[in-house]
């Protein structure tokens, strides 16, 4: 997995300027690092039978038909082209945070993640769309599987900037209403909002039949709180600052963080929502694997 670490390592990605280049780098590196195509076996749909001719791969012989007819037919597959996946990227102010040990801010990390997923989706002819939000949806690229969609998505991602505070729940509700066809919804956010609102929104998406995958993004410092002495913490989503003795608050802070994550993880699992937390110092491979696993669960192979 050493090579895997390299292509999706945030340190490496940070050195690449173009978002598309980053996405390509991630996805192609991810693909090349594996012996079999990740699409193979579940990203295609059965289409028809044809006669077997020498040289065909015997794995695709339909042995059931052979048993009934004693003639060898070969199963033919067509690629699944109607997976609709809506990518939701949180651009709230808190996403702009970059700790001392992180290679990039959470927002950049989220952009890379969404770009890589979009790249992967469009490459296998799925339809992908994008919604960028903070308190509300700031911009949206409708679902499409056309060749120009990738450019539109990447342009929208590149233009995204950290905005106001987060209101994930409301946005999820709105997306559930606007995105009615059953598909997949992938959320990349730091989810720094009321967990009950968030969970209700996610539940709404699930209720609409969407497969939901949540990438909960953290900066490593947000889970370590590596501060000492008196500090004044300035809110990235406002102008207020809170002063305190950091060593005294660390314990309570970490407890709050853990409770938040545990609650989301537990409730997501209960609602059959895929929930993954990621720190921005971790390779994006984990995110892609999660995506592929989720897609397989949502749309299992028909072979």
């Amino acid at each position, binding site marked *: 997995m050493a090579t895997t670490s390299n292509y999706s390592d945030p340190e490496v990605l940070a050195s690449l300027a173009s978002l598309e280049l980053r996405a390509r780098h991630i996805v192609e590196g991810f693909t090349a690092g594996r012996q079999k195509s990740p699409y193979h076996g579940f990203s295609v749909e059965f289409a028809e039978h044809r006669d077997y001719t020498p040289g065909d791969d015997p794995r695709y012989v339909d042995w059931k038909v052979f048993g009934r007819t004693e003639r060898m037919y070969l199963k033919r597959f067509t690629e699944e082209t109607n997976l609709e996946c809506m990518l939701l990227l949180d651009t709230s*102010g*808190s*996403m*702009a*945070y970059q700790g001392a040990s992180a290679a990039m801010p*959470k927002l950049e990390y989220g952009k890379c993640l969404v770009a890589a997923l979009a790249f992967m989706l469009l490459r296998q002819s799925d339809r992908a769309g994008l919604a960028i939000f903070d308190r509300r949806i700031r911009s949206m690229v409708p679902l499409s599987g056309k060749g120009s969609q990738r450019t539109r998505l990447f342009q929208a991602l590149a233009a995204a900037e950290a905005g106001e505070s987060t209101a994930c729940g409301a946005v999820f509700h709105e997306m559930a209403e606007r995105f009615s066809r059953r598909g997949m919804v992938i959320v990349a956010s*730091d989810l*720094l*909002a009321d967990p009950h609102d968030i969970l209700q929104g996610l539940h709404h998406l699930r209720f609409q039949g969407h497969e939901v995958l949540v990438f909960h993004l*953290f*900066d*490593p410092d*947000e*889970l*370590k*709180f*590596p*501060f000492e*002495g*008196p*500090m*004044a*913490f*300035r*809110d*990235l*989503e406002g102008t207020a*600052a*809170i*002063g*305190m*003795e950091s*060593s*005294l*608050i*660390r*314990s*309570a*802070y*970490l*407890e*709050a*963080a*853990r409770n*938040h*994550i545990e609650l989301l*993880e537990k409730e997501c699992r209960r609602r059959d929502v895929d929930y*993954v*937390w990621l*720190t921005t110092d971790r390779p994006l491979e*984990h995110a892609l*694997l*999660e995506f592929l*696993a989720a897609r397989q669960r949502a749309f299992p192979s028909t072979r």
Partner: protein
Amino acid sequence: MVLIAWGFGSAGMLGWLAAALIPVMLHLWHQSRRKETAWGAMFFLRQALERHSRRMRITQWLLLLLRVSLIMAVVFAFARPFLDSRLGANGTSPTSLRLVVLDTSHSMGLDSSVMERGREAAQRLVTSAPPGTGILFTTPFTKHSTDAEAVSFGDHAAVLREIERAEATPRSIHFADYLPRLGEFVDQLLASHDGLQQLDVFVISDFAASSWYAPHQDSSDGKFSWQDSIDEEERVRMHVVNVGTTGLSNVAVTRVWTPDRRQHATQPLHIFAEITNFGATLQKNLAVRFYVDDQRVHDEVVQLDAGQRQVVEYMSPGTALGWHAVEVRLGEEPHEADDRRWLVLDAAARTRVLCVDASFRLGRSMGNYLSLALSPGTNSQAAESPFVVDIARGWEMPDTTWREYDAVVFCDMPSFTAAESEELARYLREGGSILWVMGPRTDPANYHETLGANGADILPVELDSTPLEGVYSLDPLDFEHPMWQDFRGQEETGLNTPAVYRYWKSDRRTEEANVAALVAPDGDPLLVTRPIARGRSAILTTSLDLPSQTAGDDAQRWSTVAVMPYFVPLMHGLLGWMTAHAPENLDLLVGESWPLPVSDLVETDVTVRLPDGNEVTTSMANDSVEYFTDTDIPGVYQFTTRQPSESTWFAVNVSPEESDPATTSPQILPEAWTYHQVGDLDSWLEQFAFSSDQSELSRALLWLAAGLLLAEGWLLWFAAPKSGFTGRDVTRNLGDFNTRRMAE
């Protein structure tokens, strides 16, 4: 009622309590120096604050309290606290007090080791005092204060510094006079310090015989005492600590004088100096040097046997007019204050006296007698006389330029007009002197109306209308009047010889300024003086005219004073005093007050130039300061007034008694008093060796400080990861969760 109070052995350490502010200041400083950082996960932070802000605030206050308490405990520990029931009920005033009096008179400085021993003894008395004992240090020459603030209590560092600074002064002391004052002070101490149960008074002295001479000649035992009321106070103990030594030698200039109290420029200047060897060994080749106005004018070498005194004389043909400072030194660079001595004198021109004689008869009248007495007959004698006398007839008075004279003597003037009396009053106020000599022509009624209380008010008496007749001698009233200075000590003055047969009875007016110099045996005033502004007025109520030998009329016989032996010195004394503008006392001892010669002057600025060159200037009114008290430096002081411009000098010298190092015997002390030789002091002080729980308290406080330190550490630990959640915990737990998900 508080049974146990507390104090501190090193109260000065309590100043470090200010260090307790350091944690507070650090806290505030930290608050102001917060490092600002942008932060994303404010959601968690706010949640944490909502749940734990109260606890955090309490923790912070507790930490602050612990740190402040820790510093205070350490400071208190080093301040050596003690519990002592001897302290007053409020814990701030002592029930036990040591009053330490260090003699700083001149004799203490005759040998440097004496003063050094005195300081050591005083310091030992302070440092050996049990904790809680109040200390009051003073010298006989400092103002004693009974204020609570004056009592050193707890930390005696300031007192020890004060003792270290104490030096022998040129002042003199008589303990016979000082001890009653000290007794009064002790009385005040007892009255002002409630609950004072023990007062130890220590007088540290060289026990010089001159300072401790027998106080009460009429005392049955000749011993010292202070106040009977204090002797009865069991809570007061008197200790005398002798730090003196025997066998000290000292040579001093013990006296400088001139035989002519009123020096005139025409007279030869005679200066005498007395040199005394107080030691027990021969002193050879002692150089005695005379200086006049800082110019060395005469040297002489003397040799003095043990205990011998020798008078050295200097004479010069004359001096310039005005004030002169005469100094006599032992050697070129005198070491001790008593190695030099000063004298001031005012060389004046001859005094001009006008006799206005209403009874003028050529060759024998009052004016003639006065002239002969004041300025003797031959030319050579007259040239040496301080007086120049002119005689005018009574009727010439208005035409005489009498204002130019220093003194005017009116002999048997019958009467004065109101205008004349006003002129005379002005003359007196401006510094002139008038002697009124009565006689048969005198009209008492006119005197009363024009010169007396009803007129210009320049007459010292009120005359009756008729003269008294009889045979009267003269009573000088123990020569108390300053005009009698030259008579004092003279047993055979002849004043008791009957010489007055008739005088105008008078009533000496009650003003204190009217001072009788002579009275008749029945107390009737014969010679009365009175200062009038800057001048002086005197009246002789009898005549100086001799009885007429030819008339044979007893009724005209008034007195034979003019032919009595005392007449010449009497007139010299009287006119000399009346025309002497300098104050009487121009030779003071160090520390004595000098009466300012300005009591009758109008408001004016006065300046006193001190021997060290500094000047003291003050503006004073008639009724303001009457004495100059800043006479701590031996030497010549120059007093000047600006308006009118006048100058008076006076000399301040060390008391010759203080030059004598001889010590006295403790037998003169009352039996109730404790006498210590300084060598015995240590063994005596051992009884006060104080074993207290002082160190235990300090130790307990240090233990408390250590406990507070531990508590602070525990609180920090308690306040920090008490819930067990750390950043590593969170990432590990979540990492496990993700790994599990990946496996799935």
